[in-house]
């Protein structure tokens, strides 16, 4: 979509003679220090920032649900192991963890997905485990067990659909977090592979021009704000739709 609505190429259409042009008719959002159209870069940046946000959060959710649900369902030593892992991941400063992974794998989209996708699943895991625990002894789950369903089938068909609501909410909130984490990594020099733009890297690149050319940072900043706001509202909306209690309240 971006190539269609963007004016110019966000990387190659750099014209240093047009550096730091304020917003106007030709450049709607102005240009950056390299003379690149910020409007185009914000559009392209959306692709990377949203990919990072959505995909890394999907990975987190998958890991968190798989670990949390199995731990809650099976209990025992596996539960202990997962709880330990969860506590560990909660406790390790995730930014430093991500930084180390980025340094090892060297910056880029895949590395970002790994760095951010492997480090933020603990909340989801905790939630999935707690919800599974409360469902494990429900009648319909026990009925399924009596019917001879396999553990995996029970988890996937009986438990998963019933714990998904709050997990999706956490997931949407985490997407905003991932967009910001990418910005922080860019600030520390290990974000997305330049020269391709992400909102975070645009923002961190522009920090020295905050007084001389504020528009360079305002627009990616606004993009992040609107996105996180949207994701939060989406999360709230999903909670209202998916939370059985909230549904009962309105019915």
């Amino acid at each position: 979509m971006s190539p269609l609505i963007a004016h110019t190429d966000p990387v190659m259409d750099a014209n240093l003679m047009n550096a730091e042009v304020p917003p106007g008719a030709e450049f709607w959002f102005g240009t950056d220090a390299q003379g690149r159209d910020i409007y185009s870069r914000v559009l392209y940046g959306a692709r990377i920032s949203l990919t990072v946000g959505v995909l890394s959060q999907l990975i987190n959710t998958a890991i968190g649900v798989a670990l949390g649900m199995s731990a809650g369902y099976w209990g025992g030593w596996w539960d202990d192991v997962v709880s330990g892992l969860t506590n560990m991941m909660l406790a390790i400063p995730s930014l430093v963890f991500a930084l180390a992974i980025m340094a090892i794998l060297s910056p880029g989209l895949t590395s970002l997905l790994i760095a951010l996708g492997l480090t933020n699943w603990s909340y989801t895991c905790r939630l999935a485990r707690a919800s599974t625990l409360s469902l494990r002894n429900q009648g319909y789950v026990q009925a399924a067990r009596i019917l001879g369903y396999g553990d995996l089938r029970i988890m996937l068909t009986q438990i998963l659909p019933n714990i998904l609501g709050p997990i999706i909410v956490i997931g949407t909130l985490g997407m905003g977090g991932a967009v910001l984490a990418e910005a922080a990594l860019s600030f520390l020099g290990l974000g997305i592979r330049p020269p391709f733009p992400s909102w975070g890297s645009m923002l961190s690149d522009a920090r020295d021009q905050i007084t001389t050319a504020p528009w360079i940072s305002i627009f990616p900043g606004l993009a992040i704000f609107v996105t996180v706001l949207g994701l939060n509202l989406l999360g709230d909306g999903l909670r209202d739709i998916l939370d059985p209690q909230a549904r009962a309240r309105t019915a």
Partner: protein
Amino acid sequence: MLSYLARRLIQTIPILLAVAALIFILFSVIPGSFASSLGDDGKSVLDAETMARMNRELGLSDPIYVRFARYVGQLAQFDLGVSFRTRQPVAVVIAERLWPSAQLALASMGFAIFVGVPLGFVAALRPGSLIDTGSMVLAVSGLSLPKFWLGLLLMYLFALKLGWLPSFGYGDGGLKHLLLPAVALGVSPLALLARTTRAAVLEILDADFVRTARSKGMSETRVVRWHLARNALVIVLTTVGLQFGSVIGQAVVVEKLFSWPGLGSLLIDSVSLRDLPVVQGAILTIVMIFLVINLTVDALCAAIDPRIKYT
């Protein structure tokens, strides 16, 4: 109670060991070394021979399993090793950062709690009101502004434009220097706390016992004071614990920006200088603090909510 605490403390040992192993492996395969960092500004020059000697001296030329065995051996004796760069014991290097870190964490969490929790309360009691919407927007701003960005804005506003506060530094460790970094760091836990509190209060407002309280002829303020606050506190405390623990690790960017002498900036500097013993020690310390804080929170919750038992 005591045996519960003791058991919980013992449970942290495998976690600490796992963290130690994970960090050790990560920072063993990471490219770059302390010696190469001594020539990284393009100005200073470290000659090849000294570099090689330095790697030998620091034990970096040994195979990874030898180094790991040595490291675990040290840990078993509660020895975090010696910093590559200052050649002081890691424990000493970390100790001098603890108090500033604690100050920053306490101040930012204090700010988050004393603003976020009441905000969440008010928003929940008047859902859909201006305050509710306002606090939601504020919360989202807090969650969507990168910290370095927010820090810079605060500096411009409160130091440069208004001249109320110094823009950077530790000063004598007083409130004046603490305020701006604490706010920059506290805004995102504030946002989370406000949202969690709001959700918790809304849920409790729907609880049967609140209806009971009302059926007794209680005014809304008394309902909140006598029945709601304590119940909400449990949920809020758990969030506070999780945030408190992670705020120390998240302080990296803010400490760098404000020249604050905390663990975060120590950690990030040690990462960029590849001072591995300090990196490992600092992370272990942060993890330990996190675990202890959460243990404390659990104990507090148990004290507040009689349903929670020490199991």
